[in-house]
């Protein structure tokens, strides 16, 4: 058996993206889906204690249930909740898209572009319905 020791070469680093470029580069739609998937995921992670607290209040007793209803009737609270609902729907729908991509479904350029569009076409109307429901329109 021969032993082979590779000489350690420094790995090439391509740091060609700086902050001003980040502002001018235009992301493709799938890129927006991707970064928003990450942002919404981080947001949901940060909101976890809030969500658990709400689940707790909703389940302890009828009294705490009504208390939660009272808290959630504030306009600002509703806005925060709507923001989280948007994040949740985006994360969920984009996640389904990634699962399909992992199964090699729709990986060609045309269909991946269409599915990126579909993520918005599904998650935004769902958020709108939730908004209408939240603010009492329906």
């Amino acid at each position, binding site marked *: 058996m021969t032993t082979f020791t590779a000489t350690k070469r420094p790995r090439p680093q391509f740091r060609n993206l700086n902050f001003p470029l980040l502002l001018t580069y235009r992301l493709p739609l799938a890129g927006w889906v991707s970064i928003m998937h*990450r942002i919404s*995921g*981080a947001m*949901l*992670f940060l909101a*976890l*204690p809030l969500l*658990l607290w709400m*689940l*707790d209040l*909703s*389940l*302890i*007793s*009828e009294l705490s*249930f*009504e208390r939660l209803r009272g808290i959630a009737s504030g306009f600002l609270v509703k806005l925060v909740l709507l923001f989280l609902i948007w994040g949740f729907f985006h994360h*969920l729908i984009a*996640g*389904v898209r990634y*699962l399909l991509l*992992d199964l090699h479904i729709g990986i060609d350029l045309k269909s991946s572009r269409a599915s990126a569009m579909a993520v918005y076409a599904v998650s935004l109307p769902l958020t709108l319905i939730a908004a209408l429901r939240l603010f009492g329109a329906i």
Partner: protein
Amino acid sequence: MAQSARGIGSKRLVVGAHYGLTGFLGQRITSVVLTLWVLLLGSSVFFGPLTYETWAALFAPLWMKVLSLVALFSLLYHAWIGVRNIWMDYVTPVWARLSLQTITVLWLIACGVWSVQILWRV
């Protein structure tokens, strides 16, 4: 790469994915569990009036508590992989990454303990 600077095991990876496939698969499997749980919750809330009685009754059976706990633990594992990836992408100093990862794990464990209490108090 994220390696300690010197000493014993200086070539060893201290923070990182370690076993990429486990995390990759784990994140995807937990995402399916979460989707199903959310659909179950969503459908039972959507069809019918949402009162305390109906909501609490939904979580009353043992199977629902167990199912919900499995879903919440899935959420924690899912969140761990995701947040770990974020730290690995943007935080390069080993000490900072290790600290953030440690805080994340402890935080998620705390949330897990809390969810047991939430579910079993109903």
